[in-house]
C-alpha cells in the first residue's frame, strides 16, 4: 500500500497500477480514450493528463499522462489543476476538429464515450473553423457498420483486433492526420471477435449492424442481465428489447467468465428470437388452440401411463427439472446423443471427484503453459480461445517485469516480448486458428490425440498407464510437452466434448492429475457442446437411446420433447423410427426444426429473452439469466408450462411450485450437485430502499406513446413474480447487486465505460463479487485413480474413411445459426480430406465425394488439405445436409452392397 495525494488529499492505494486506473478505482472522473482496462496503456490520446508535483513545495508541477505513470508512494498529483483541465478540454477540441458532429444520426449517440468525455472535459465551443477531412467507409460484413469520419484515432480498434484478439485483417493505414482504420479492401471482417469493436471503439466508427436494422437508442431499451446461450462458456450478456423484439446483445462484464468481451456468435446470434417462424401459438394436430384448452388437453393426455420426457442441454435447469418432475425420474431422458451424454457425465465425474480444479476463463488468461487436446476452441468455446491467446503472453512478459516494466505498459511489454510466445501445445484433428501461437501442434485422430495425452501423463508420473508402440516423434513431442508443463507455474490442460472422444478427455484428466502431484496450481478445463450440457449432466437422467427403446419396446407411447431437435442428437433412422412409433409427440420449444415439424402438439416456449432460468457453464458455474420482456400471453418458459400442466394434472408436488424461486429451491434441495443454486440471485422479494431494480434506464423515452396506436391509455406494466426487477424505469437508482445488473450507467458515464463504476477495482471483480456459483470444487486429498484403457493407434481402412465432425463458430450451434447475420457466415457443406487421399480418389477441390453411412448415401464437395490425418475426413458439425449426429463413424466409399459387413474398427475404451 502507498499514499497518493490527489489535490492535496491523501488516499491509501495499492501499488503496481498506473495513476489513471488508480484514480478511476478511487472514483475520480479522469477522462481517457486509448487506455482500456483489458489492453493496458499506450499513451496515444493524451486525454488522461493530470499534473504531477515533485514534492509539496512544487507549485508548478508538470503535465503527465496518468495512464502511463506508475503510482508511487507519496506521489502528489492534481486532477483539478487549471492547466490539466485546459489541456484535457483541448484534447477533445483537437479530436473534434475532424469529427462530424453527427450525434443525432449516429448509433452511438447517447451511449458514446466521446460524448461523455466531451461533456466531462467541458469542451463546448468549437474554435476550429476550417474544413474537415472526410473518408470513405468500407463494407465489413454482416455484423459491423463502418463510419470512419467519426474516428478519433485512439488506436483501440487495432489494439483489440490485432494485438488482443489476433485478427489479421484490420489495421491502421497512412499517417499524420490522415490515418485510416479498416481493411485492405472492403470485405467481411474475419475475426470471431469483431463485434467487440462496437464496444471498444469510443465513438460510432464500428457499430452493431444488427441493431441498426431495428435501431433503438440504447437508453430506450428494456434490458435484463442474461447469459449467452450459444456455447458452454456462458458469457454474461445484457439483452435489450423494444416494441416486443430483441434488439441487442451487449457484454455484461464478469471478472471471471468473459471480462469485457463476447464472441460474434454470442453477440449476433440473438436474432433467432425475432424469427418469423418462431412458435408463437399452441397447436394441436395443426389446429391453433388457446392456453386453457391446451393445458386441459395435456393434463388429460399426460395422466395416462407411458409418457416420457426428453430434456435438453440448451434448456435451463428449471425447465429440465420441471420436465423430470412431471414425467418422473424414470421417464426423464437427456436429449443428447449417448456419446455426448457419457462425455458430459465424465466431465462432471472428473471435476467433481478428481483432485484438480477447473480454472475460470480469467485464470486461463494467466496460465503460463497450456496444452489443448482435441478442441478447436475458436469454434467451440470462442472466449476461451481469446483467453488462451492472452496466456501465451504470460511467460515472455516475465522479462518485462524483470526490467521493471509493469504489465499494463502495453507497447513497452510488446517491445520486449516481440514475437516470443509462452508454451502452448495443440493436438487437434485439423488446423485451428490458435495453431499460429503454438510451440508445436499435432494433427491426429481423437484416439491418437488421446495416446499422446496418455504418454504425456506417463512421463509426468510413471504410475499412470504407459502407452505402447509410440513412434519416436510422438514420444519426443510428449516429452517436450511434459517438460513445458512441468516448468510452468500455472499449467492448464484443456479438452472437451468437441471431438466426441472419452479417451481424449480421460487423457487430459490423467495429465492434469499427474501434474497436480508436482504442482497444485494445475488446472483442467473441459468445454461442452451446449450452454447447459454441464447442468443437465449434473442433474441425472437417462440416455437418449433408452428413450427410443422405451417407445420401440412399447413401454411408452407419448413423448414430450422439450427445446430439442432430436435430429441433432440421434441417428436419423433411429429418430425417424422413434417418432413414427410415438402416438403423441408433444414438442415444447420456441423455434421450428425437424422434430417440431413432426409434432402432434406444439407448445410455444419462451426463448432466453422471455425466460428466467439457470445454466451451468463448463466451469461448473451456475448462472442466472433474467427475463428481458414478457412475450405474448401464451409464450412462457418451458418450466412454467410444465408447472401449469402438472398443477392441472393434480400433481401436488408440482402444484407447490408457483414461481421461479420455488422451483429453483426445489432443485437446490433435491439435486445434490446443484445445491446452492437458489442463492445466486436475490429472491423476488428483494428490494433496495423498498424499490425494485428497473430494467429501463431513467432516460427511457416514449412509453406513454409507444403503444398509442393500440391503446391511448398507457398499459399497466407487468409484475415480475420471479425476480426483483421491474419492467419500467421506476425503481432503485443506485448500483444493483452484481448478479442482477440490467445495464451499466453512472452519472456522466453513458457509454459502456461506466462499468468501471461497478467494479471493486478497475478490471477486477464486480462490487459484491462476480456473480454465479461454482458448483464443482475439487478435493485435493482424493487419491488419484488414473484412467486406463488406452486406445490403439488409428489405422486407415481401405475403401473407408473415418468421418469426424468439425465445429464452426457460425453454423454448428443450433440457435445462433438461425440469425440472419450469422447465417451469412455459415460455411457451405463440405467434406475435408487429406491431399493424398484425394489423389487416391482422383478428386479435385469442390468435386463431390460420395460416401455411405448406415445405408444412407451422402455426397459432399471435397475440400483438400494436408492438415488432417490420412484416412480421415471431416464435415462441419450441425450444418444442414450433414449427418453430424451419426459421427464419428466409418463411412464406406464403395457402394455398400459390394463390401462385406465389417465390425466397428474403433477400439472402445472401457473405463477401469
Amino acid at each position, binding site marked *: 500500500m502507498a499514499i497518493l495525494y490527489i489535490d492535496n488529499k491523501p488516499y491509501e492505494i495499492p501499488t503496481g497500477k498506473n495513476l489513471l486506473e488508480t484514480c478511476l478505482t478511487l472514483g475520480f472522473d479522469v477522462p481517457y480514450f486509448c487506455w482500456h482496462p483489458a489492453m493496458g496503456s499506450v499513451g496515444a490520446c493524451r486525454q488522461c493528463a493530470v499534473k504531477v508535483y515533485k514534492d509539496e513545495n512544487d507549485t508548478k508541477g508538470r503535465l503527465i499522462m496518468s495512464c502511463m505513470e506508475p503510482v508511487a508512494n507519496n506521489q502528489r498529483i492534481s486532477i483539478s489543476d487549471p492547466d490539466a483541465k*485546459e489541456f484535457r478540454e483541448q484534447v477533445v477540441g483537437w479530436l473534434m*476538429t475532424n469529427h462530424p458532429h453527427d450525434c443525432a444520426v449516429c448509433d452511438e449517440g447517447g451511449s458514446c464515450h466521446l460524448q461523455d468525455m466531451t461533456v466531462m472535459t467541458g469542451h463546448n465551443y468549437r*474554435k476550429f473553423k*476550417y474544413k474537415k477531412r472526410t473518408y470513405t467507409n468500407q463494407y465489413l460484413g454482416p455484423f459491423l457498420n463502418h463510419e470512419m469520419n467519426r474516428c478519433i484515432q485512439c*488506436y483501440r480498434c487495432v489494439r483489440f483486433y490485432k494485438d488482443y484478439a489476433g485478427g489479421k485483417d484490420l489495421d491502421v493505414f497512412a499517417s499524420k492526420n490522415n490515418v485510416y482504420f479498416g481493411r485492405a479492401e472492403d470485405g467481411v471482417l474475419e475475426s470471431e471477435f469483431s463485434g467487440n469493436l462496437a464496444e471498444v471503439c469510443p465513438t460510432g466508427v464500428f457499430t452493431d449492424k444488427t441493431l441498426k436494422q431495428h435501431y433503438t437508442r440504447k437508453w430506450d431499451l428494456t434490458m435484463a442481465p442474461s447469459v449467452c446461450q450459444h456455447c458452454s462458456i456462458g458469457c454474461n450478456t445484457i439483452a435489450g428489447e423494444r416494441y416486443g423484439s430483441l434488439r441487442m446483445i451487449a457484454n455484461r462484464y464478469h471478472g471471471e467468465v468473459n471480462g469485457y468481451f463476447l464472441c460474434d456468435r454470442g453477440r449476433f446470434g440473438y436474432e433467432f428470437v425475432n424469427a418469423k417462424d418462431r412458435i408463437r401459438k399452441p397447436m394441436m394436430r395443426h389446429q391453433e388452440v388457446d392456453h386453457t384448452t391446451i393445458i386441459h388437453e395435456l393434463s388429460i393426455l399426460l395422466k395416462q401411463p407411458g409418457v416420457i420426457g426428453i430434456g435438453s442441454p440448451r434448456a435451463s435447469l428449471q425447465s429440465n427439472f420441471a420436465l423430470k418432475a412431471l414425467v418422473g425420474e424414470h421417464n426423464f431422458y437427456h436429449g443428447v446423443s449417448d456419446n455426448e451424454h457419457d462425455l458430459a457425465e465424465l466431465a462432471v465425474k472428473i471435476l467433481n471427484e478428481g483432485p484438480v480444479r477447473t480454472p475460470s476463463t480469467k485464470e486461463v488468461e494467466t496460465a503460463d503453459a497450456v496444452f489443448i487436446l482435441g478442441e478447436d476452441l475458436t469454434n467451440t468455446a470462442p472466449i476461451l480461445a481469446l483467453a488462451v491467446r492472452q496466456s501465451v503472453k504470460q511467460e515472455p512478459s516475465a522479462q518485462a517485469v524483470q526490467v521493471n516494466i509493469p504489465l499494463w505498459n502495453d507497447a*513497452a511489454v510488446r517491445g520486449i516480448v516481440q514475437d516470443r510466445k509462452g508454451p502452448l501445445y495443440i493436438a487437434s484433428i485439423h488446423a485451428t486458428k490458435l495453431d499460429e501461437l503454438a510451440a508445436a501442434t499435432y494433427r491426429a485422430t481423437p484416439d491418437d490425440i488421446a495416446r499422446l495425452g496418455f504418454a504425456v501423463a506417463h512421463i509426468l508420473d510413471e504410475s499412470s498407464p504407459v502407452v505402447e508402440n509410440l513412434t519416436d516423434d510422438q514420444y519426443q513431442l510428449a516429452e517436450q510437452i511434459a517438460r513445458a508443463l512441468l516448468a510452468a507455474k500455472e499449467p492448464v490442460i484443456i479438452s472437451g466434448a468437441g471431438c466426441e472422444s472419452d479417451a481424449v478427455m480421460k487423457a487430459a484428466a490423467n495429465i492434469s492429475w499427474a501434474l497436480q502431484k508436482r504442482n497444485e496450481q494445475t488446472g483442467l478445463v473441459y468445454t461442452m457442446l451446449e450452454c447447459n450440457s454441464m447442468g443437465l449432466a449434473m442433474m441425472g437422467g437417462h440416455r437418449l437411446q433408452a428413450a427410443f427403446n422405451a417407445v420401440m419396446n412399447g413401454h411408452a407411447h407419448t413423448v414430450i420433447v422439450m427445446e430439442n431437435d432430436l435430429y441433432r442428437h440421434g441417428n436419423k433412422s433411429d429418430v425417424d423410427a422413434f417418432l413414427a412409433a410415438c402416438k403423441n409427440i408433444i414438442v415444447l420449444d420456441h423455434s421450428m426444426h425437424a422434430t417440431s415439424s413432426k409434432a402432434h402438439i406444439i407448445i410455444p416456449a419462451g426463448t432466453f429473452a422471455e425466460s428466467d432460468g439457470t445454466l451451468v457453464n463448463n466451469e461448473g458455474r451456475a448462472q442466472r439469466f433474467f427475463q428481458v420482456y414478457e412475450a405474448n400471453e401464451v409464450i412462457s418458459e418451458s418450466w412454467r408450462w410444465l408447472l401449469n400442466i402438472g398443477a392441472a394434472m393434480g400433481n401436488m408436488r408440482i402444484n407447490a411450485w408457483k414461481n421461479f424461486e420455488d422451483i429453483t429451491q426445489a432443485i437446490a434441495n433435491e439435486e445434490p450437485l446443484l445445491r446452492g443454486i437458489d442463492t445466486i440471485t436475490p429472491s423476488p422479494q428483494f428490494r433496495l430502499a423498498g424499490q425494485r431494480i428497473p430494467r429501463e434506464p431513467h432516460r427511457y423515452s416514449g412509453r406513454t406513446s409507444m403503444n398509442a396506436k393500440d391503446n391511448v391509455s398507457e398499459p399497466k406494466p407487468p409484475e415480475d413474480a420471479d425476480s426483483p426487477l421491474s419492467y419500467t424505469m421506476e425503481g432503485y437508482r443506485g448500483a444493483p447487486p452484481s448478479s442482477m445488473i440490467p445495464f451499466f450507467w453512472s452519472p456522466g458515464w453513458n457509454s459502456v465505460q461506466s462499468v468501471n463504476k461497478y467494479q471493486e477495482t478497475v478490471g477486477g471483480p464486480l462490487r459484491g463479487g462476480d456473480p454465479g456459483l461454482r458448483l464443482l470444487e475439487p478435493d485435493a486429498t482424493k487419491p488419484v485413480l488414473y484412467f486406463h484403457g488406452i486406445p490403439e493407434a488409428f489405422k486407415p481402412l481401405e475403401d473407408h474413411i473415418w468421418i469426424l465432425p468439425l465445429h464452426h463458430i457460425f453454423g454448428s450451434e443450433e440457435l445462433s445459426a438461425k440469425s440472419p447475420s450469422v447465417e451469412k457466415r455459415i460455411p457451405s457443406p463440405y467434406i475435408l480430406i487429406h491431399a493424398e487421399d484425394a489423389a487416391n480418389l482422383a478428386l479435385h477441390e469442390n468435386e463431390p465425394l460420395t460416401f455411405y453411412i448406415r445405408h444412407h448415401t451422402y455426397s459432399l464437395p471435397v475440400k483438400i488439405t494436408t492438415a488432417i490425418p490420412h484416412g480421415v475426413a471431416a464435415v462441419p458439425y450441425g450444418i444442414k445436409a450433414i449427418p453430424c449426429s451419426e459421427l464419428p463413424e466409418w463411412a464406406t466409399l464403395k457402394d455398400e452392397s459390394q463390401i462385406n459387413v465389417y465390425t466397428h474398427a474403433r477400439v472402445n475404451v472401457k473405463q477401469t
Partner: protein
Amino acid sequence: MERPLTEHIRKDHRPLTLREYEQTGGYQSVRKALKEMTPASIQSVVKESNLRGRGGAGFSTGLKWSFVPMDAPKPKYLIVNADEMEPGTFKDRLLLESAPHQLIEGMIVSAFALQADTSFIFLRWAYKEAARNIRFAMQEAYDAGYLGVNILGSGFDLEMHMHTGVGRYMCGEETALLNSLEGKRATPRAKPPFPQVSGLFGKPTIVNNVETLSCIPHIINKGADWFQKLSRTSDAGTKLFGVSGKVKHPGLWELPMGITMRELLEEHAGGMQAGLKFRGALPGGASTDFLVTEHLDVKMDYASIAAAGSRLGTGTMIVLDDKTSVVGFVRNLIQFFAQESCGFCTPCREGLPWIEKILRSLEAGDGEQNDLKLLDFHTKYLGPGNTFCALAPGAMEPLQSALKYFRADFEQYIAAELQTLAQGLPAERKQRLITDISKF
C-alpha cells in the same frame, strides 16, 4: 585549428579508399581499442571526453552508453542514426558521403565498448551517393578483417548492415527508428524502457548520430583531454556548423565548439546577401527557437545557446532575413512537421495541421484576432511531455520564438485584414475591431 572530422576529406568529396584512409592513421583506434583497451576503459574515456550527442539533443554519449547492461546476453545492437531529415540540416551528409571509413571505424570501437555484436547504419533513402560509398567502404572493411568474426584476432565479432529508409522524418527519432528497422510503422515508443535496455527486437541497443560516432576514433587515439581542448567552451570537441538562407556563402564547416553566431555568420558564411538584413536565425535546425540580433555574440555550444533560450540542435543554422515573411517562414516549418507527424498522439496529429491552417489563413489575409491566441495556446500545450515524442515540441520552438520576437509581423496580417473588413462595417463596430487589435 584542428579539424579531426574533416581534415582528410578531399576537396571533391570523393571518399578515401581503405588504403588511403589507413595512410592517414585510419583504423588505429580499432587496433588500440581491441588490443589495449577494455570496454570499460573505452567507455570511461568517452565519458571523460565530455562528448555530447550530435543528433540534436546533446545528451552525454558516455552516460548514455553506461545504461547498457554489460552482462546482457547477445544480441546487442549499435545503430547509427543517419536519417538526417531535419529541415535546414545537412551535416551528416558530408561525413556519410566523404568519410565513410571514419564512421565505420567509430562504429567498431563503439560496438566493442558496448559489446554489441550487430550494427546497423540507418541511412536516409535520399542519400544515394552516401549509400554507394558506405557500401563500398563496408565491403573493404569486411575484406580487411575490420568487420566480421574475430576482428584483428581479438575475438571480438561485429556484423554491420546498412538499411536505407523509405522516407519520413519520424524515422530519425530513435525509438521510431527502431520500429522502422523492425519492419513496422515508424511510430515512437514510450520511454521507459529506454533502448539501452529494450531496443531493437527487445534487446539492449544504442542509437547514436553519425557525427557523434565519427568523433570516437579521434577521442580514442588522442584522448579525452585533447578532445575537450578542441573546444572553446565546456562542451567538448569540434562541431560541424552550417549556414543556409540568404547569406553570401552558405556552407558547412568544422569549427570549435563555442564559436559565436556572429563569427559563423560573418566570417564563414560571409554575412548577409547584399541589400538584406539579418533578422534572426534558427541556430540548429528547424526545431530550435529563433535567436535574434541581440544574440549574435552567443557562443555556439549546448549550454550557451540553451541559456539564450534556444538549442544548439544540429548546429546548422537557418537564417531569416528582413525581406522574408516570418509568417511564411514559420508556416513552411509547421507544414513540414504536420506532414511528418506519425499520427499516433492527438495533440501533434491534430494540433499541427490546425496551426498550419491558421498560419495559411493569416498569409491569405483571413486571419482573426483569436488566431494569435490559438497559436499561443498551441505553443503552450504542444510542449515536451504533453505529446508522445519530441516532434511536436520541436515544431513549437520556432513558432513560440517567432511569436515572441516577431509578434508584430503576425499582428500586421490580422490588422490588415481587419482594416479591409472594417471598411464595410458600421463605425461603432469598426472602432471595436480596431481597439481589439491593441490588446495583442
